[in-house]
């Protein structure tokens, strides 16, 4: 059959009406859509998100339909624009409290206190993490995970060279010097694909040299960043960099390449975060892995023993303009189920370690990843008892954190002095503290 142009034009209104009717009929039956923008996820992560979150949630009830989009690294910028325009997703995920601060201060996300009361969230989350999202006495987000910097090391290489897991700075430097003498890189490290690696290292130096109490004082405005403990921390980072502890190719290697140096025995150790458990190429989930992990030992005299560092890698909120806050809350509730926790941490370890208060050992042992299970159990214990340092990406405000990352390269490459670096950091921090941009500090004891 051949249609003339006139017949086609005449048919358009009828077709539109039919489509409209069909759509409205469908809409009545349809479940309420809950939208969720996710940042970056590798192929394993995307599969885990699809299977363990989206499909599992949609199959678990018939009221809401979760629609998740992986937006990539630019999601933080997209979110701000979308929220201002009133077109953001229902579930607002940020890259942590430092990002949430501006969004919460602008009132673009809903206070969750009523929902928290209904679902008992305040009783179910670790206060150390939950309190990082409290502004003006109101709760604006739930923490999606906890992270910390750790010392990963090649236990076979350690055994081969007679090195023992270090417990202080002298021991760690003795291992590093011996490694250098033997042509082994002390720490596999590289920031070619992510400059944030600089702040991973500086989190360790600030906390493990200056001590978490001094860091807390500085974040509270009671101690300037130019104080001697922080000068010592920056000077130590510079000394290690210049001695070649991080190898000759720090600015050329990617995170994965540098970590694989440790796995392959070319480097002895790596200062990296718990997210490293999620990269399958490292082989850390295998029973015969050469890798082991421990909390980073003290690097100064401020404390003895080792330290984990409190980080919230992502927060989950509900957009102010969301028409389906209950649906978003239902998704949060689903994330708190044991089934989801086990499945997500099995399929994408380290990315979704919900900081719940009640974490029975059998819940972790079901994951089948001994190194990860051990680390999460230790983190949970330390965070529950208030023994932790503070990560720069969670507690430093934006401009100060950006300078911390960029400026430290100038120190390491002898362009500026540690004093000049810290003076600039103090100036930026003081201004941001005055502007109310410093994320809230959790209580010391949980």
């Amino acid at each position, binding site marked *: 059959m051949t249609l003339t142009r006139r017949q086609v034009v005449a048919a358009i209104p009828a077709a539109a009406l039919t489509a409209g009717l069909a759509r409205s009929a469908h809409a009545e039956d349809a479940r309420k859509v809950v939208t969720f923008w996710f940042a970056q996820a590798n192929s394993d992560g995307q599969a885990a998100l699809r299977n363990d979150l989206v499909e599992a949630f949609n199959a678990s009830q018939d009221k809401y339909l979760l629609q998740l989009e992986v937006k990539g690294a630019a999601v933080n910028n997209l979110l701000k624009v979308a929220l201002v325009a009133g077109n953001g997703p229902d579930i607002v995920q940020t890259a942590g409290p430092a990002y949430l601060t*501006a969004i919460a201060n*602008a009132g673009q996300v809903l206070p969750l206190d009523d929902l928290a009361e209904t679902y008992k969230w305040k009783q179910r989350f670790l206060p150390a993490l939950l309190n990082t999202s409290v502004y003006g006495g109101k709760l604006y987000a739930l923490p999606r995970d906890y992270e910390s910097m750790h010392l990963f090391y090649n236990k076979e290489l350690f055994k081969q060279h007679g090195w023992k897991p270090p417990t202080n700075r002298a021991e760690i430097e003795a291992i590093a010097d011996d490694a250098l003498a033997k042509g082994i890189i002390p720490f596999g490290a590289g920031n070619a694909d992510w400059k944030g690696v600089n702040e991973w290292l500086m989190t360790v130096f600030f906390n493990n040299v200056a001590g978490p109490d001094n860091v807390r004082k500085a974040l509270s405005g009671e101690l300037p960043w130019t104080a001697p403990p922080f000068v010592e921390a920056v000077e130590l980072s510079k000394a290690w960099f210049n001695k070649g502890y991080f190898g000759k190719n720090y600015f*050329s290697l990617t995170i994965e390449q540098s970590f694989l140096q440790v796995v392959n025995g070319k480097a002895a150790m790596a200062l990296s975060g718990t997210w490293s458990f999620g990269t399958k190429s490292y082989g850390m989930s295998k029973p015969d892995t050469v890798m082991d992990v421990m909390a980073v030992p003290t690097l100064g005299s401020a404390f003895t023993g080792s330290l984990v560092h409190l980080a919230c890698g992502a927060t989950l909120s509900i957009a102010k303009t969301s028409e389906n806050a209950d649906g978003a809350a239902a998704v949060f509730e689903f994330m708190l189920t044991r089934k989801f926790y086990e499945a997500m941490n099995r399929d994408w370890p380290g990315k979704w370690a919900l900081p719940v208060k009640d974490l029975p050992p059998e819940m972790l042992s079901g994951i089948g990843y001994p190194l990860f299970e051990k680390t999460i159990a230790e983190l949970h214990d330390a965070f529950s008892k208030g023994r932790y340092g503070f990560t720069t990406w969670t507690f430093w405000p934006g401009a100060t954190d*950006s300078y911390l990352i960029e400026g430290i390269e100038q120190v390491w490459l002898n362009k500026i002095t540690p004093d000049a670096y810290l003076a600039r950091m103090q100036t930026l921090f003081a201004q941001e503290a005055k502007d109310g941009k410093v994320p809230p500090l959790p209580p010391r004891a949980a």
Partner: protein
Amino acid sequence: MWLFALPALLINACIILVPALLTFAAAFVLWDGIGTPAWAGLANFRNLFDDPVFWSALSNNFIWTAIFLTVPIIIALVMAAALLMLPNARIVVQSIIFLPRIIAVAVTGRVFQGMIFSPATGIIGWLNAHGFSLADPLADPDRSLYAVAAVDIWHWWGFLAVVFLSAMRQISIDQIDAARLDGAGFFALFRYVLLPGIRPTLTLMLILTVIWSFQVFEFIFIVTRGGPAYGSEVLATLAYRHAFFEGDVGQAAAAACVMSLFGLCATAAYLWLQRNDGREAA
């Protein structure tokens, strides 16, 4: 006449003029990109000028401009003149030298970063493993800007050569033959016939090079992100960092205004040259 230009003017007003005016206005407020903007007067410019990184970024823009006004222009002019003399090689060579231009910037950047400069997976790494001692220039704050410029030149000069060749082909063949009969060699022909013959095109490309050099962003952001130690930071990467990493849209807009200032100067120079050319022609 105006009616004829109206669609283009409307599009330009919507997608260029309005955002440009908003950016200009944003330079005078304190704004984190999501809250309520607050009037800041000239504070953003004062803070910008007090920041030593701004001045190093600005000088990097000047260095970049100087490089791109010379190196790719010279290579492209010589290649275009050579191709004019060798008509049989023209199609094949043009296709080859134009190829980098059609490869996505992100791909080119990653190829140079990972397959050429990288000491782990690149040619530099291979050379180091075979007895040479070469460092990754991207890892050196004093060389990183030049290394990224080399990548961009590779991507850019072929396009310029094709543009110059097209312009040279507009020159009367009688003029070229006459010069040859008078005994002009390659360089004399180049200097006294080809260069004057493509002067309007050359001027346009030089002016555009100045404008684009102050807007340069992609290659630097992809390959070094302005580092290490701000070694390859330019105004555009500085503005991006202020806006999206520091949440300081006002400061970013101030940096963007400085960028635009140089673009405006270049545009004014071009318009002035055009007007003078018009007068001379009349």
